[in-house]
């Protein structure tokens, strides 16, 4: 009798909290899936991931893009000399790892629940949610791979990172670089197939533009969840990510076809130089917003970014000579719009230098031309990928792709040297200029196994010592792999 009574009370004992929401309750509605997906983007836009470390943080520091004050207020000096035992670096990269996998876990929770709940979705939503969750999982894994593991070129069979694709408290074994990439590509390709069917961005009616642009239709959809597709991993973003991953894998034909799919869609207009050079700071386009295929909406990181770049005394900045040499101001870069728009000369305790204004905001968010975004994938990168992928087969075409971007940035001199080394060198220069403080150039050095030269001309030879960041101690200690 006792057992009977208690058994019948099982439902009553199943209490759901109300200040937080349980997995079971959240995934009972379509809105719950929206919230879970938005949650991942919000999580990723935090300072320990794409709102900071993975964009403006350590890859940029390690690519030697910043100057360091002797007081080292930012605690990045040790990172810039590749001291991976530095406690500040360790805690930062450990937190990034933790944040990345926490986001991946959230993707896995969506994917665990979505197929059973297929019938609660309005038409087309299921594909978007599932496609984005798969794409996010792959996108985040790819950045962990690029940061912590061997590059494909130098160690594709080396064991790399765990590719976590189930929700569990069980430890996932490490995959090799090659295996990881295969899994990333599988997820991205599945996402691509899902998104192509229903992503509004594919429709001709979806017009990219600034938020206050009358022609733009990015916030026209009555469902908030389907607005601003470029703030989430849309169909083209998945194509772009595929191009990036295929290039990493040295699969040039797939890289090219995916890059071209984005380029040929003609969805993303080149930024008008006048927007970059606009003297009225309220009308200034600081990040070439319309060229973003995908970016993280990072409005809440405004203060942190201001702290990081707002003062050359205590924050991150770039020295006078390094900046000018990066943008080749003395030669072809004299009129580079990017240099003009992103850097302001000031003087700090170490002399003249440049304040980085790429992420600068007006006080009131509404007064800005665009949202505060952390760039994820750019149109220009598609041209670079297309260029690099087509170089072995059609070098003239490759130079064309590169020159197109240069032309849109105010570099009128076309390039067409014949040496492959020159091509890569010029390509990397462009990458470095274009993605400054966006966290991409470091991975391109790593992918191509290039030496890294510091601003004081110290050469860090390409080697695991600078390219392989150790996994977090906790990961090794508690995994018993």
């Amino acid at each position: 009798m006792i057992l009977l009574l208690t058994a019948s009370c099982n439902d009553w004992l199943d209490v759901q909290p109300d200040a937080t929401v349980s997995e079971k309750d959240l995934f009972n509605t379509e809105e719950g899936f929206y919230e879970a997906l938005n949650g991942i983007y919000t999580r990723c836009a935090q300072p320990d991931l794409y709102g900071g470390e993975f964009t403006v943080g350590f890859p940029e520091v390690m690519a030697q893009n910043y100057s360091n004050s002797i007081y080292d207020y930012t605690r990045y000096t040790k990172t810039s000399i590749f001291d991976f035992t530095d406690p500040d670096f360790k805690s930062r990269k450990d937190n990034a790892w933790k944040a990345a996998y926490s986001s991946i876990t959230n993707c896995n929770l969506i994917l665990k629940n979505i197929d059973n709940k297929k019938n609660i979705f309005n038409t087309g939503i299921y594909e978007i949610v599932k496609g984005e969750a798969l794409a996010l999982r792959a996108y985040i894994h790819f950045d962990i791979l690029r940061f912590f593991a061997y590059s494909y070129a130098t160690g594709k069979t080396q064991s790399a990172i765990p590719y976590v694709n189930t929700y569990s408290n069980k430890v996932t074994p490490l995959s090799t670089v090659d295996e990881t990439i295969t899994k990333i590509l599988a997820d991205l390709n599945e996402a691509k197939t899902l998104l192509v069917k229903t992503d509004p961005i594919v429709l001709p009616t979806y017009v990219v533009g600034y938020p206050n642009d009358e022609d733009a239709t990015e916030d026209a959809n009555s469902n908030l969840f389907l607005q601003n597709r470029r703030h989430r991993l849309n169909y083209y973003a998945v194509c772009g990510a595929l191009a990036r991953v295929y290039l990493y894998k040295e699969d040039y034909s797939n890289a090219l076809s995916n890059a071209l799919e984005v380029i040929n869609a003609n969805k993303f207009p080149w930024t008008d130089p006048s927007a970059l050079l606009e003297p009225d700071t309220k009308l200034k386009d600081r990040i070439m917003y319309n060229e973003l295929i995908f970016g993280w909406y990072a409005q809440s990181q405004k203060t942190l970014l201001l702290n990081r770049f707002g003062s050359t005394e205590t924050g991150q900045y770039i020295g006078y000579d390094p900046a000018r040499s990066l943008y080749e101001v003395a030669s072809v870069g004299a009129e580079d719009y990017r240099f003009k728009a992103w850097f302001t000369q000031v003087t700090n305790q170490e002399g003249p230098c440049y304040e980085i204004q790429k992420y600068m905001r007006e006080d009131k968010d509404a007064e800005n031309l665009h949202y505060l975004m952390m760039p994820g994938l750019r149109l220009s990168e598609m041209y670079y990928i297309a260029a690099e992928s087509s170089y072995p087969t059609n070098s003239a075409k490759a130079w064309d792709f590169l020159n197109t971007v240069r032309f849109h940035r105010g570099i009128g001199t076309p390039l067409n040297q014949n040496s492959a080394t020159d091509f890569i060198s010029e390509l990397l220069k462009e990458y470095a200029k274009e993605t400054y403080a966006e966290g991409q150039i470091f991975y391109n050095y790593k992918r191509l196994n290039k030496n890294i030269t510091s601003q004081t001309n110290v050469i860090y030879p390409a080697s695991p010592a600078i390219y392989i960041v150790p996994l977090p101690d906790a990961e090794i200690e508690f995994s018993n792999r």
Partner: protein
Amino acid sequence: MKENDYKKQLFANNCFHILKIMRIILFLIFLSTSTVFPNVFSQNNIFSFNFSNNTVKSILLEIENESDYAFLFADDLTKEMDQKVSTTVESSTINYVLDMVFRSTNLSYQIIDRQILITRKSKNTTLSSGLPSNTQQRTTIRGKIMDNKGEPLPGATVYIKAKPTLGVTTDLNGEFTFQVPDLNQLLVISFIGMETQIVNLKPNVLFYNVKLNIISTELTEIVATGYFQRKKDNFTGTTLTVSGEELKKINPGNIFQSIEAFDPSFKITTNNLLGSNPNSLPNINIRGVASVPTGGSGEVLRRDNLSATVNMPTYILDGYEVGVEKIFDLDLNRVASITLLKDAAATAIYGSRASNGVLVITTIEPEEGKLRVGYNFELNLNVPDLSSYKVLNASQKLEYERLAGLYDYIGASSQNELDELYYQKMYNVVSGVDTYWLSQPVENAYGFKHSLYLDGGSQNIRYGINLQYQSAPGVMRGSGRDRYGIGAELSYNLSKKILFKNVLSVTKVDATESPYGSFSDYVRMNPYYPMTDEKGNLIRKIDSWTDRSGTGGSLNTEVVLNPLYNGTLSSFNKSNYLEVNDAFSAEWNITDQLRVRGLISLNQKKSENDNFLSPLSNDYYFYSSADLAKRGRYFYQSTTESTVDGNITMTYSKGIHDHFINMALGTNIRENTYNSKWLTAIGFTNDRFSNIGFANGYQENTAPGSSSNIERLFGSFFSLNYSFKNKYLLDLSLRADGSSKFGTDNKVATFWAAGIGWNMHNEDFAKSWEAISMLKLKANTGLTGSVSFLPYMSNTLYDYYKTSWYSTGVGAIVNQYGNESLKWQRTRNYDIGLDLGLLKDRLYFTGRYYYKLTKDMLTDITLPPSTGFSYYKENLGDMKNVGYEIGTKLNVFKNKDWSVMLNGNFIHNSNKLVKISNSLKELNNKADEAQTNDDYKGVPLLRYNEGQSLNTIYAIRSLGIDPENGKEIFIKKDGTLTNKWDVKDIVPICDATPTLEGYFGGSVYYKGFMINCSLYTRFGGYEYNQTLVDRVENADPRYNVDERVLNDRWKQPGDVALYKDIADLGTTYVSDRFIEKDNTLEIRSIYLSYDFGKDILEKLHMRNLRTAITLNNLWRSSSIAIERGIDYPFARSFTLSFQANF
């Protein structure tokens, strides 16, 4: 109404028919059934009426009708009865009324209980006159057996002395019906633990009320388990029952300290930080700590912070579960008794809530009878105890500063400036400034308490009303706790079979924290600082120190502010709660053996916290003018907690010859809802506007917060208690519990206990024993659980990003891995015990040994972060608690006027981590890291290692101070010596657990005077002397320090000193040099009382009057000199009380 009809009929028939036949007067016991309070009579039988020319009979009939008196008279009084009288009485007793009525007749009366026997004045009608000519072969007699408090004794044996085989046992109401062969017999009435009584049957008495006297307190205790009651004598569980009266003799203001004195295994964790703060709730554990902290991120803990909240016992008040605060604020005058259930056999009926022990509290129930009034007054004086603080005086302090090198040129200021500073201070010293800062924020605090209790009623309806008010100010100025309470209890007994009872109580508590801040701020103030300027105004900025400790060696100025200044502002930190509780119960006595009882209790508690920090407070002294509008802070929190607790219990008890069975079957359901909301506002214009409405806005980067949860519990239990010939005892309990706190896979668990006992003194062979009057052996084992953890741990939970939305909507993110297979933490208990009474129980001794193994301890398991989580909850880890308890009581001397008693209760509990999880091991690494930072540099942190105890002190071994250079010599892990402190050399040094701790004392009684004394001692353990580290070695010479700095630190080569070089301002880290033996003796309580004699009471129309003085925490001596009461000092307390019952 039926009852009334019956009575009238009885009146008529008895008077005019039966009595005619019997021709004698019978004493019959009438049921008094007055259910309405008549207009002519007041309920307490004070009469007012006016009769003119009525017959005596009609007057008596009227009295009988309207009161619970019944009249008996012989039929030959008819003539007198018809006599007519006139009389008027006002507010008079029955005696006066009858005197008036019978004044002109020749009738007289005799009141026996509720029966009034009427006889002729001249006639010699004695009780024994006129034996009845008994025609019946057998006579049915009835009766009720009670203990000396009037509580019925079910299961008491009643038999004919001449024919022991002929006997009956009493039912649940202590009543019996017995067919005796004739009335010329002696009736033997016996009950375990009571003095056997022999009653001479009287021919004319058919109902016997017998009260049995207790042989010895220990023996006759009833164990109230919260669901049902057991006689302690045939119960095999380990329990302790103490009456409220006895508790009051230890400490009238603190029920927990009183319980601890009776059973030290009920242990209050000493909180050296919070001292005697009247608002700090105690942390309690019974028989050791059975859970380890789990706290999410797994914070590093100081040893003295090991939270006992997860080890808190379950509190059951009058049958339903309550929180510790309810007991903390309970008026001790309301407590009838407390029962502590300690081992599995006693607690298993609480199943999942049993592991940490159960404290059952019963409150005083109204007694039937006339209105009684009880009033209790207490005057309480708290005196701060600063005796543990030994700080330097002004001249010593300045000398220490000089020796510490504060005025030696090191580059901050020129030597001239330093000299100037020194002589300015010297000027203060010489001119007599020697402020004793410690006494500034404290005061002698007077509090008082009034408790009023009214009760009374008939057998059918009983009522009780209680009111209390208590102010309990603390010794820190402005702190205190005021308690208000009102309660009403009504019980209605329907035809003896069914009883309804309702208890409503309302409690309000206002708690205030001192605006003076932390006591430690005063301890560190330099004595050469004056408090006020020449005009008598408080100086706010007293001093400033400049050195080169700033970033990159830049100048750094540290300003010394007067902590007293905060106390003059309108800052406050107040909290209050209002709690309403209603408990309704119904009891149905289906048969004499079978009873069903149901209880439902509803409880709602609303609390608020208002914490205002004035914009003028010292905290804002350094705010720049740009932040002017951010000064001042108001924190507001509102919490509502509701609980529904219900249970139904069926009990059956039956004695058949030598077998006696008690059974209980019950079920219990409980739901607790907790909801809290809070916000912080900042920006107040000035000190006067302390209302939250004056705030400028929310605190930056904060949002209103909330927390809410629901806990549900459902359980059923069965309990069996069997005794054979009162010699062999058996207890079995089983409980199945379901809780919302646990994983979907394990919602329900079963718990059980089994116990056996042997009352050897009841054996035949024991009759020849002369010295041994009692010997009882018992043993039990069982499995109990514990769920004192946060709910929802088994759910995968999502949190919302409330403040930062994504451009496409609000986001939710998982924050906790829900382990659906989470199980109950279970404790395996073994307990063996011995009770021994010697020399007719003049010496009484109990001994217990227990072994508790907590399995499946709920701990955090650290995960590799690639799982997406840092940890999750798992059942892993075992902990063992082994201990013994010794209690002894000696009646040294006893006669009519004198009695002398001695007692002692001691315990030892040792704790061992048998198996621990990886996250606890991970905590050791965190502890190592934390050990080197400023907050914990000198604090021995809690570490977890298998085979060690939670009480183990971890430190580096040290050889002491090298007399050559004043530096400390450490022993590394490998045994080599070094001067360099390294966290890796930390090893377990010793177990802080005392060999024995407990209470002893005694009481002397002489003609109404009583003195009771209770002392506490512990010895054989160790303690880490934090004062030596924080206030001697790591002392900041710019502030006041312990006097040992000046006296015992190394000063020059050759000094054999306990503490390092006085000029060494470097950091001292944790080392075994500071571990000292902890042997402590304290006078916890001295109680003196006087009970006024009968003659005085009669004059005052009182039932009793007692006056008492209690002295608490009077004196203390310890082998370890440590500062006690860091944030709030300890206090000695004196209570004067008067207790009067009318």
